[in-house]
């Protein structure tokens, strides 16, 4: 279709038509135009008939060429003038000239349809060939690679969590605390269905009675009875409740008001009145119902016991301590303290269970009972601590009747004066208080001796409560003294014994000691014998070197100690001879300088002389010997001193532990093995490294530690509760992994870890869906502590 002749187009040869029909819209458009030209040139048909034969020939050729499909272009030949067919401005001069499609389309550029076609054509021309599809294997591989990258990235988001868990000091499993939901009984029961005939039978029996299984476990009858409460009753009850509430609030308000009153006087009066009231009541009770009074007494006794147990009035509280500080300067404070002490005293004093009605009858009885310890003698012997077998009883005995009254009523007993003069009591009491205060001060000035106390006791017949307190205080002091004294006495004999006993024991010990040491060396088993033999050998080897002169004496001793003197002496002789030789050498070595110099001088070497002159000051050999001696001394095992002063005897500054104790607790070490440089006079072999200890020591730095200081630090820090407080101990010994028995540990999941859950879509969804309780769970993960 590249080249077309107008004639051929006009006649529309079969082949041409066929081609046109085969072509696209472009070709259709062209065909239309050709038809137009055909209509225009129809007038000159006759002329053209001449050319018919020629055209036919042409057509034939064309058809033939169409068969091959190659030479079509060449066949397109023009024999007519170009003007006739120049409407498209196509120049087709020669058969060999090519017609370019774009040229053909040029005149109709303005027409949009064709320009689109042209564009398309251009595009078609530019397009390259589609590459061959990948082989199946390769395609799969690509997919795999992509998938692997994606999934490893997905998995990688767990990295921080994993690292955190690995580093965590403590992990508590299960990570998520599951809340055990107990299925309600009704559900369980209703869900269960009987299957076997036996079960069915039992089930049937049970359900005949219509036992309820839903939540309020009530039978219909019970429900009915519950509902049957009448309206009136309910109203009445409500009114009652209201009243009670109002009363309570009134009472509370009143109490609050009273409590707010700051006046001390008011409170004092209040207390007094209460006290009096109680006393009166008690007296009334005594008269009317002695048994009830007794019961009351019991109660009081109980109170006393409680007081004794508690530390309420012992001047130990915060307030009391502050008072104690103030007491020096403030009279009020002192008084308050005293009051409290008195209170304690009276509360803790024993109640005699005897009714005051029987008092006159009782007192002589008391006397009768106390005849064993005559009261006069008690008083007379108070100065003598030896006579106070039972110090507290006799001192308090005279006070008993008062004490009884005092303690019987919780708030101390009053005198008759007070009873009569109720109005003036306060001023009266104050006066009394001042009076006694002065007296006490006077007594203190006299630096209270026991006699003084007793005097006071006798003088003051316990008129009022304050005096009683005072008296009791005095008694207390005497008690203290008396208690201390017997204590002293009891200690004394012991110390005397101790002083005596060493005198008895010491000589015996002195005699026994060698025996004992021999006993220590006693052999029982084969191993002991061997060990002993080796020890002896070493001892013998050592000692002659150190002390060369004592040989004969030692030999004698050894001869005494050992059973077979003959054999051993032979060996010893050998050793001794060797040692003597060696020691001789040593002695020679001690002064090598002088003879050497002498020889040199004889030889006439001046240089040596110069050197000796130059180093005349330092004696190297002596230094060396000294050093060696020092090393030897240092290597000797030191005795272990376990003496603790003050145990079993008196200790303190200026006191030394007794010889006996030193002897007992100064542990002598086993003699050291012979030194290796024993026979080498010019050598010091250091034996610092302890082979026995080395077996227990770490030779290499273990893995996680970076320096040996670090490791040593770790070992040096104790973790036991002996060295650490309880809290620190718990922290130090917390286990790495904690699991709970009977709990299933589920694998980690995104819901457990909020950070991971946030990254994944599903995770976020889940987090959004979960109720706030679960959020709390995530946030409260105190288990995981990281370093």
């Amino acid at each position, binding site marked *: 279709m590249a080249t077309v002749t107008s004639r051929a187009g006009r006649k529309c040869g079969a082949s041409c038509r066929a081609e046109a029909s085969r072509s696209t819209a472009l070709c259709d458009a062209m065909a239309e135009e050709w038809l137009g030209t055909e209509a225009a040139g129809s007038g000159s048909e006759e002329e053209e008939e001449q050319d018919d034969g020629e055209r036919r020939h042409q057509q034939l050729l064309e058809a033939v060429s169409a068969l091959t499909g190659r030479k079509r272009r060449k066949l397109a030949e023009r024999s007519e003038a170009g003007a006739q067919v120049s409407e498209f401005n196509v120049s087709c001069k020669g058969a060999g000239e090519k017609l370019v499609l774009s040229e053909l389309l040029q005149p109709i550029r303005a027409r949009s349809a064709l320009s689109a076609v042209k564009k398309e054509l251009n595009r078609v021309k530019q397009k390259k060939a589609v590459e061959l599809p990948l082989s199946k294997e390769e395609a799969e591989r690509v997919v*795999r690679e992509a998938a692997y990258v994606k999934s490893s990235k997905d998995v990688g988001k767990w990295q921080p969590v994993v690292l955190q868990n690995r580093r965590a000091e403590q992990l508590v499993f299960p990570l998520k605390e599951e809340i055990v939901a107990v299925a309600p009984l009704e559900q369980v029961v209703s869900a269960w269905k009987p299957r076997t005939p036996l079960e069915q039978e039992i089930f049937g029996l049970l359900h005949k009675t219509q036992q309820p299984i839903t939540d309020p476990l009530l039978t219909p009858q019970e429900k009915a009875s519950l509902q049957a409460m009448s309206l009136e009753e309910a109203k009445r009850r409500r009114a009652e409740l209201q009243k009670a509430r109002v009363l309570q609030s009134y009472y509370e308000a009143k109490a609050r008001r009273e409590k707010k009153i700051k006046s001390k006087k008011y409170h004092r009066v209040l207390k007094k009145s209460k006290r009096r009231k109680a006393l009166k009541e008690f007296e009334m009770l005594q008269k009317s119902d002695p048994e009830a009074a007794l019961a009351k007494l019991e109660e009081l006794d109980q109170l006393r016991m409680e007081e004794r147990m508690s530390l309420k009035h012992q001047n130990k509280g915060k307030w009391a301590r502050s008072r104690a500080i103030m007491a020096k300067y403030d009279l009020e404070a002192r008084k308050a303290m005293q009051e409290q002490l008195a209170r304690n005293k009276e509360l803790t004093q024993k109640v005699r269970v005897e009714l005051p009605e029987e008092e006159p009858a009782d007192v002589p009885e008391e006397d009768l009972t106390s005849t064993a310890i005559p009261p006069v003698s008690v008083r007379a012997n108070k100065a003598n601590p030896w006579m106070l077998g039972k110090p507290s009883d006799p001192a308090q005995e005279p006070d008993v009747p008062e004490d009884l009254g005092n303690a019987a009523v919780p708030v101390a007993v009053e005198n008759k004066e007070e009873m009569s003069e109720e109005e003036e009591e306060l001023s009266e009491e104050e006066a009394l208080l001042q009076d006694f205060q002065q007296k006490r001060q006077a007594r203190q000035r006299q630096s209270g001796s026991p006699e003084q106390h007793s005097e006071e006791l006798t003088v003051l017949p316990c008129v009022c409560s304050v005096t009683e307190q005072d008296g009791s205080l005095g008694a207390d002091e005497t008690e203290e003294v008396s208690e201390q004294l017997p204590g002293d006495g009891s200690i004394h004999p012991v110390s005397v014994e101790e002083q005596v006993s060493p005198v008895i024991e010491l000589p015996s010990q002195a005699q026994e000691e060698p025996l004992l040491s021999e006993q220590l060396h006693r052999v029982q088993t084969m191993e002991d014998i061997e060990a002993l033999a080796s020890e002896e050998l070493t001892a013998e080897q050592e000692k002659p070197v150190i002390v060369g002169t004592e040989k004969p004496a030692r030999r004698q001793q050894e001869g005494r100690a050992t059973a077979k003197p003959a054999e051993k002496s032979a060996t010893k002789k050998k050793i001794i001879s060797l040692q003597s030789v060696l020691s001789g050498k040593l002695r020679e070595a001690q002064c090598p300088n002088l003879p050497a110099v002498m020889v040199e001088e004889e030889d006439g070497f001046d240089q040596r002389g110069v050197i000796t002159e130059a180093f005349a000051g330092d004696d190297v050999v002596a230094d060396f010997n000294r050093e060696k001696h020092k090393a030897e001394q240092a290597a000797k095992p030191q005795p272990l001193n376990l003496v603790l002063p003050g145990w079993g005897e008196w200790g303190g500054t200026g006191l030394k532990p007794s010889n006996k104790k030193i002897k007992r607790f100064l542990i002598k070490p086993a003699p050291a093995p012979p030194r290796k440089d024993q026979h080498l006079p010019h050598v010091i072999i250091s034996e610092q490294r302890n082979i026995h200890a080395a077996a227990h020591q770490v030779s290499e730095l273990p893995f996680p530690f970076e320096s040996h200081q670090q490791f040593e630090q770790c*070992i040096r820090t104790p973790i036991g509760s002996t060295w650490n407080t309880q809290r620190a101990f718990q922290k130090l010994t917390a286990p790495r992994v904690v699991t709970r028995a009977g709990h*299933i540990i589920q694998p980690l999941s995104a819901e457990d870890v909020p950070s991971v859950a946030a990254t994944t879509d599903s995770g976020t969804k889940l987090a959004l869906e979960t109720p706030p309780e679960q959020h709390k769970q995530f946030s409260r993960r105190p288990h995981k502590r990281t370093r």
Partner: protein
Amino acid sequence: MRVKVLSRNPDDYVRETKLDLQRVPRNYDPALHPFEVAREYVRALNATKLERVFAKPFLSSLDGHRDGVNCIAKHPKSLSTVLSGACDGEVRIWNLTKRQCIRALQAHEGFVRGMCARFCGTSFFTVGDDKTVKQWKMESPGYGEEEEPIHTILGKTVYTGIDHHWKDAVFATCGQQVDIWDEQRTSPMCSLTWGFDSISSVKFNPIETYLLGSCASDRNIVLYDMRQSTPLKKVILNMRTNTLCWNPMEAFIFTAANEDYNLYTFDMRYLTSPVMVHMDHVSAVLDVDYSPTGKEFVSASFDKSVRIFPVDKGHSREVYHTKRMQHVITVKWTSDNKYILCGSDEMNIRLWKANASEKLGVLAPREKAAMNYNQKLKEKFQHHPQIKRIARHRHLPKSIYCQIKEQRIMREARRRKELNRRKHSKPGSVPVVSEKKKHIVAVVQ
């Protein structure tokens, strides 16, 4: 006369009420408590000795199977229930507290190859040599009902392993290929293949549940992604891997039990070399299971022993064996981190303590404190030679002992030979290959 005597105020030591704690005055002055290192050392030594004295890990043996136990499955919701499948096709369900078999059923003809429980614990799946996958109810059948599976899927080839998804109603089987099944359908959702080989086990990742790992008999380990239904990567080792197990606390870590006596812990993101090579067994390792805490795993071996390895250590911390225990085929660590179950050739399932010297039962607070203290002391002084010697001492049967010795000699000889070869050849021509790299043949994309 006043004489000073010792006197103490009772307020300093008497309790105010009976319910108060007794006050124990302590003085932490270090001068009063000397020799702390020496004393703690002695305590540590004693603790170590006691640990060895009390190390009695074997609890009981569950007998009842009439053929070797081939697989064990844990119940996901009940600690006391354990399922086991034998080589004669019988499945038994055990109650561990009573140590009794509570149910026995003939599941397959031939071996029960694999077994897994559904995540909810209501049913379990078995695969057998008879080319079937069966789903069973966990409860025993009611009165008058027959023992039969809920579903049976008849396949074309033998299935060698099965594992259930951790959250969805999906399970995976392996045989000639890895099939992923929906529970409701009788044909697989997708089949994952990469070459043709018999795959011996397949495991779902417990954390990233769409990941699967499998090991085939052509010595490779293949990872799959269920979402994209494609394999991911393949590692070829020197010898065949029998089983693998994912770490339940670390999503990308898994351990493979290999025929070459070793276990390999891999990070799935870096497969070119394992994170750790665990060596101690003297025969093929047949099974491995992680502790639920993810800190340790237990391995069962053909050498008739069970070993416990810390994840980050190359050697085992514990070895369990008894005279009667034969080749251990399967092993499981219970979900409470306390016990280990192993099924062996001689038809028994054995129950061991995971911590050999642990005291079972409830501990008093003081006991617990003492235990913790002892544990810390042992840890602190573990490098001291005497303590190390005691702590490390284990008794081994003669066969294993001799084999270990023999293999040590062999290893030494190989090492020496390599050294000599390196010495006598051109420098650089015999490179030093690390132990980790030595066992990896290739990683295929």
